[in-house]
């Protein structure tokens, strides 16, 4: 059992530079969009990570091929947030809806933007959305995410350098 943390500073920077501050995040600002193709290997890895070997994800489905677990769409919007803002923080709320199955090899264009930000209990929250469309322009998924910028209260000073930047390789 870990001892209670008494850290009283919010990190000012990490290996990717200065951490983005709450005031620098603009409601309505777009996130850097991305083209995303899920591979057979990505699906296999997602199944292993989640220990979810539903036959639709492993063998075949009513969609004519194996398809990806819907939660595979977690990563691209997080990558897009990271490309746009240097934020670590933690995940607070996750909404999504699946409109089409995610098939291996299909190209999905993902766009997103910041939709809200607020302060509650001395912590800073941001909310962003992302939507994936296939090459025919049909919606594949939509998602809304709420993220807490720091676990430490916003009254704490910003100083020091973090070990974990939040930046991760853009792969499943």
């Amino acid at each position, binding site marked *: 059992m870990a001892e209670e943390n008494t850290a009283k500073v919010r990190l000012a920077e990490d290996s990717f530079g200065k951490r983005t501050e709450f005031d620098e995040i603009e409601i309505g600002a777009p996130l850097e969009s991305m083209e995303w193709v899920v591979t057979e290997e990505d699906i296999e890895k997602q199944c292993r990570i*989640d220990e*979810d070997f539903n036959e*639709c994800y492993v*063998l075949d489905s009513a969609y004519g091929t194996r398809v990806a677990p*819907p939660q595979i769409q977690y990563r691209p919007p997080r990558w897009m947030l990271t490309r746009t803002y240097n934020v*670590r923080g933690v995940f607070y709320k996750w909404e999504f809806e699946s409109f089409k199955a995610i098939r291996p090899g299909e190209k999905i264009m993902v766009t997103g933007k910041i939709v809200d930000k607020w302060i509650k209990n001395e912590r800073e929250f941001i909310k962003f959305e992302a939507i994936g469309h296939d090459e025919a322009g049909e919606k594949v998924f939509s998602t809304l995410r709420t993220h807490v910028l720091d676990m430490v209260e916003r009254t704490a000073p910003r100083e020091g350098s973090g070990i974990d930047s939040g930046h991760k390789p853009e792969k499943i």
Partner: protein
Amino acid sequence: MASVNTIITNDTPIGFELPPVARRFDVSMFAAGGMKTIHNDEDAARAEGLDGPVAVGPQVAALIFRMMGMCFGEGWIVGGRNAITFRRPVGVYDYCIARGVVRSKEPEGDDRMRVECEVWVETEAGEKAIVGTCSGLVAVSGE
């Protein structure tokens, strides 16, 4: 064309308890290619104000999604909706159980029913780490 048998159908009553899905986590599940992160490194986590490394939220939430896939099959893959809140961190060695209860059924279109479930993930200590709702679609005709 394959079609998967599902647990939830149009005849499933309100109050039906979904089959739980459980897993014990291990810090090795949160390795990030050798990178030190808040999910695998004590110092990285404490620097961010956490008491220690925490499980990756989506990997914990995946217990709920596995349960939904089992219950709804293709009605989760297309038409599935998720709205969850991460209420408290899960430790990297914690045992967690996803549970759910059918709370409502509403027609959607001419031939489908949206079945909404209250869902949550609880730890071994009985604390709810994730709470929310998920829903999937079932055929009204029972085909």
